[in-house]
Structure formats: C-alpha cells, structure tokens
C-alpha cells in the first residue's frame, strides 16, 4: 500500500487537522508515514500545503515527487489548481471543496476554476460549507472534504472514525459527533457521485 497525498488550502483552514486524522488512522493500521508541513510566515492567510505520505514500506523522501501524487485533497477550489503538476495523471484523484476563500483582489471566477477541475478524469467537487452547516457547524467543512476523500485513501473507514474519536475526544462528545457526521456526509456524497459516474 502506498498513498501520496497533497493537502491544500489557505493558512487557518484546518489542513493540518485533516493530516492528523489521516495520520492517526494510518498509524492505527500499522502503516508508515511522513508528513511535511508549512509553518511560519505562509500561515498568515497565504497558500499552504502538506505532503502526506502513507506506505506499508519504509518511506524515504519527506516530499512527494512531481506527477506522483495519488491524491490532492483541497479545502479551497483555487488552491487545488496550484498542485495540478503534482498529480499522477494515470491514477490521481482530486477532491476539493467548491467554496472559495477570497482574500485576494484578483481571485478568479469560481466557475472557471471548477471548469478546470472538471477537465480531470478523476475528481470530486463538494459544497463542503453547506454540508457542514447541515451537520451543525461550518467549521467542520474540512472534515466534510476529508469524508469525500475517504473512499480513495486506501484506509478503513472505521480507522478514520477512530482517529476522530481520539483527536476530538478531549474536546467533548458533541464535537466528536459533529465531526463524525461531517465525515459521513462527505463520504456519502463521494460514494453517490462515484455510483452516478459508473452508470
């Protein structure tokens, strides 16, 4: 098993939380992992990414090679475009929220951004903000995106649930359930989309 994942977003959108959940789930399955993060200046509202690598064998590089990522998981649509060059063109999946984080003057038209994503052979685009709101809080939008990526991670769904319980456990049952529901809602959305596309 090997999964090379690029996590993308804007500083403060919670991509490190996604990384921690996937990482905890991977460790519970006995996998090896490496996770390169961005700290420092870029965290102030700039573009941030994390290279998350899972494997049943030992992992050498902290960085994923260009054109080799199995997945891009992005919590912001324009940020998913930034890493197109990283994605494996034969197998790679792109999973992205469609909700823009607009903190720059020249933010492109969202329809154009989505049109670029929809040119790819394998993608899931999801209205994570709306789905998260339906589950109780828009703050769980990052977990909805993670849920939408879950079918392609090569991990047991129950491992992800276990990781959420472990990570949010200290913060109380309410937050655990909100995040479990957000994960499920994202997961169901991706499953439906896949069924539709196979018909």
């Amino acid at each position: 098993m090997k999964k090379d994942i690029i996590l993308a977003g804007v500083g403060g959108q919670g991509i490190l939380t996604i990384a921690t959940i996937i990482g905890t789930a991977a460790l519970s399955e006995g996998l090896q992992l490496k996770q390169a993060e961005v700290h420092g200046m870029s965290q102030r509202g700039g573009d941030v990414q994390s290279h998350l690598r899972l494997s049943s064998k030992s992992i050498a590089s902290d960085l994923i090679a260009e054109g080799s990522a199995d997945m891009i998981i992005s919590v912001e649509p324009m940020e998913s475009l930034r890493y197109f060059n990283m994605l494996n063109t034969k197998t790679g999946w792109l999973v992205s929220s469609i909700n823009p984080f607009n903190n720059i003057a020249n933010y492109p038209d969202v329809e154009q951004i989505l049109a670029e994503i929809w040119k790819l052979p394998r993608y899931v685009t999801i209205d994570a903000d709306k789905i998260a709101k339906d589950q109780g809080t828009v703050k769980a939008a990052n977990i909805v995106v993670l849920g939408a990526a879950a079918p392609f991670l090569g991990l047991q769904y129950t491992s992800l649930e276990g990781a959420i319980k472990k990570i949010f456990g200290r913060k109380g049952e309410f937050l655990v359930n909100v995040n479990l529901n957000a994960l499920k809602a994202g997961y169901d959305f991706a499953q439906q989309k896949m069924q539709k596309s196979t018909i």
Partner: protein
Amino acid sequence: MDKLLLLGDEAVALGAIDAGLSGVYAYPGTPSTEITEYIQASKEAKERHIVSDWSANEKTAMETAIGMSYAGKKAMVCMKHVGLNVAADAFVNSAITGAHGGLVVVSADDPSMHSSQNEQDSRFYGKFAQIPVLEPSNQQEAYDLTRYAFDLSEKYGTPVMVRLTTRLSHSRAGVVRKETKAQNRMSLPSDLKQFILLPSIARKRYNVLLAKQEAFSEEGIQSGNNVLYEGSDKSMGIIASGIAYNYLLENFPDRDIPYPILKISQYPVSRKLIKNLYDQVESLLILEEGYPIIEEGLRGTLDEGKTIRGRMDETISFAGELNPMKVKKALGMQTNEGYTVPEILEARPPLLCDGCPHWDSFGALNEALKSYSGGRVLSDIGCYTLSALPPLDSINSCVDMGASITMAIGAAEAGLVPAVAAIGDSTFTHSGMTGLLDAVNRKAPITVLLMDNATTGMTGGQDSSGFGKLEDIILGLGVEKDHLKIITPLRRHHDENVAVFKEELAYEGVSVIIARRECIQTLARRMKLKHAKKEETVS
C-alpha cells in the same frame, strides 16, 4: 518499542532531553522554533528542571549556553540560520574555548527561503569554526545524532553543530526513543583559564582545536554516520548528504541503486573515505541540500580531476532546495509529469490577520507621511514586514533584526529627514536597543514606530523579552520624555494617531511612538483558554 510521530525539530528536542540536557537557549525563528517549544511543553523536561525560557537574541542564547557548559552541564542553543549570524562572535570563539559540559548548537537552514531573507548554509559556519557538524537525513537520525552530539562534545571538549533544513525540521515521521541519560552535576573545567581568550591563551587553545581535526574526521567513520555503500556500476559514484540522501533513495523504490554511494551525516568528512570512492568511479554526482560545500572541496580551485556534477555546473540549480524530481533529473532518469497548472491560478501571498494592530499602525503612519516624498520607512523583521505588500505598501526595507533604527539613522544623516524606523517589540529588544542608543547619542532626526503587540508574533506568539519594560528601556537609553508617545492602534483612534505621527515627524530629534495593542492571535488564544477554564470550573 512504539514509535513517536515527531517533527524533525521535536526529535532533536527529545534527543537532547534524553541525552541529559540541563538548559536550552534560543530565540524563536522559523524553522527552528519548535525545538525549544517542545522542551517548554515537555513534562519530563519540567521534572528534570531543564531551563527553557526564551533568550533576548541568539547571541545571548549562545553565550548563556557557553556559560552552562563552562559550569559542567549539558546545554543546547537553537536558532534559524540567520540567527547564527547574530550569535557568530560567541559561536566561533566557543570553538577556541572548547566545551566542558556538552555544548550543542542547532542551526536550522531554510533553503528556498520559505520564511527567511537568504538561504545561507550553516555548514560553512561549522567549517569556519572548525568544529564537527552533524546533518541528520531523517527524523530518527535527528533524535540519534542529537544524543550523539552531546557525547562527541564531551569526548573532545568541543562545541558540536547540528544542522537541520526546513523539510526535516517541519516534517513528521516515526521515531524510536532510547534510554534517558542522567544530567551532569555542576563542575568547573580542570583548567580555570581555559575560557579566557587572552591572545597568549587563545593561541594555545587554537592549537588544541587544530590538533583535534584529524580525530574529528575519523569520528565520522567510527560513528557510522559517514558510510560508503558498494555498487557495481562504476560509471558514477554518488555523494549524498543530509536529506539529499532521502531524495536519492526515493528514486529507487526497491533501494536497488547500482552506483557506489557515500552517505554523509557528519563533518569534517574523512579524506580517506572520499578518496576510496573517487578512485573506483569514472565520475561523481554530488547531492547536498544548500550550498555546494562538499562539491567545492572536491573540485578544488583547478577542477582538473574526474567529471564532477552538482550545483556548480548547474546539473542541479544553485538556488533553491532539493526535491525528489531535481535529484531524479540529475540521475538522468525519466521524470513523471503531472497536469499543467491552469493559467487562471493567482498567487496568494500571506497577509496581516483581520484585526491585526499593524493595519491601524501603518494606516495612520501612511496618512501622516502623505505630505512628504516617499521611501522614508526603514523597517524590520516580523509580521509587520507584510506591510510591504498592497494595500498598505508602507515600508522600504527589511534587512536583518534591528536594522530599521540604524538604517534610519544612516538615511537621516544622508539627508532623508524625517526618516522612520518601524520595528516590533521583540525585534527591538533582540537588536534594536543598541541602535536607539546610537540615535540618541547622535541626536538623529528619526521617528521610531515601535509596534508593541506584547509577543513574538511571526513565529507563533512566544514571550517577548521587553514585555512591560519598554518605556523604562527607551527612557533609560536617553529618549526625551516629551518625545515618547503611546498610541492605541485602533480604527477609532485613527485621527488622533495621525496627529501624533505628524507632530513627531516634524520634530528634528529622536522620537519613539509605541503603538500598543495585543496580537490578535495571542488574544484569541488567551480568550479560548479562559473560556475553556471557565467551562471546566462550571462542570
């Protein structure tokens, strides 16, 4: 044994704790900050009374660590690469004094300048000081080599450098921990004159240092940190140091590399080892993160030997960090390509947070400066450097810690009156105070905007050394009471703040305007904590 999932920085911290550390001294700086923060948060470090408060700057940190080493205990000092410039005087001379208790200097380089103003390579400093440098290639090595650094330091009575780079500092992987060693008791060096660098003593000490060099390079072999792996294809030999070794392995998923490889994690590198590789291959490829220090040594001035490829012949670009693809290209292997990045993508540079006091400080300064010609604001290093970008476009320089005040003096003395220095509270106590003394002594016509957000904001909100003491410091340095003003950078105080700036800009002497409001990030964190505590007491 269970593996701990640690950042490279955290692995260094844990390695030091387990080596019997008694004190860590540091000033925050990306990518080194998390080393000290890990020790500050560690329960075991608390139980062992490991000193871990932030120092005012890297030089005071380095000197305090030398003092602890003098008194026989194990000390570590941590900084980012440019911090080593600040600490350089103490650092280079510590090689001459030597160490008593283990003395380890961690310098975290930032190739590609993710959060820095240059990509200088700390290994040069190690070579310059003529002390051993350890360069871990992964998180486990970061832990192991930090432990080893203390052993090496005490064995040879020398400071030892551990060199990290961003991608190791800020990447997590599993680390296996070993036993925790005892801390040293206080003890003084057997020669109480060892640390007195009077020329007559320094000459002797320098010879002591020179005499250790052969043993230092031999240690790299004995420790197993520098290893020559055999390979059947002699058309090329590869030297890979630090994390460059990982990028090499990455390109051989089954680890079946046909070429002989010299893996380097310790300097100085034994000449024997290099010669052994050189003699058996037709050409060499040098993979190192940072400057071509090994490559330059191999080529020599004349560069008339076998074909050597690396950064100096642009096989790999001279600037910027390595990655698996750059190494793959250098190996002459076919690289993968992803999709083309769509043209509609825009850059998203970092920016000041919503509600950040710097918006209001620079908003008022910008307006007060409208009646003057542009180019008058010499600034410094911190979040406020982001005011260089639109929409503020406020500042005209950012060179090194504390340079705002001294550059403003120089510019004013060239005729740029008024000149403004814009500096944060933590940067001011790091390296701005002495410059302010210069300004006072020379009666320089400068206006200092001192943005006091009560923290070291850019690196994540660490304690600021001058907290609660700034007015006393400024008046103590001789700034006139009438020209020390305190404003609250808030939108609703805009007009009165502009008036204060205008008045002080017109004064032809030293003025300091403290713009005081807490960092929005630390405020939010404090409120969250308070809220959580309240809930705890309720339930």
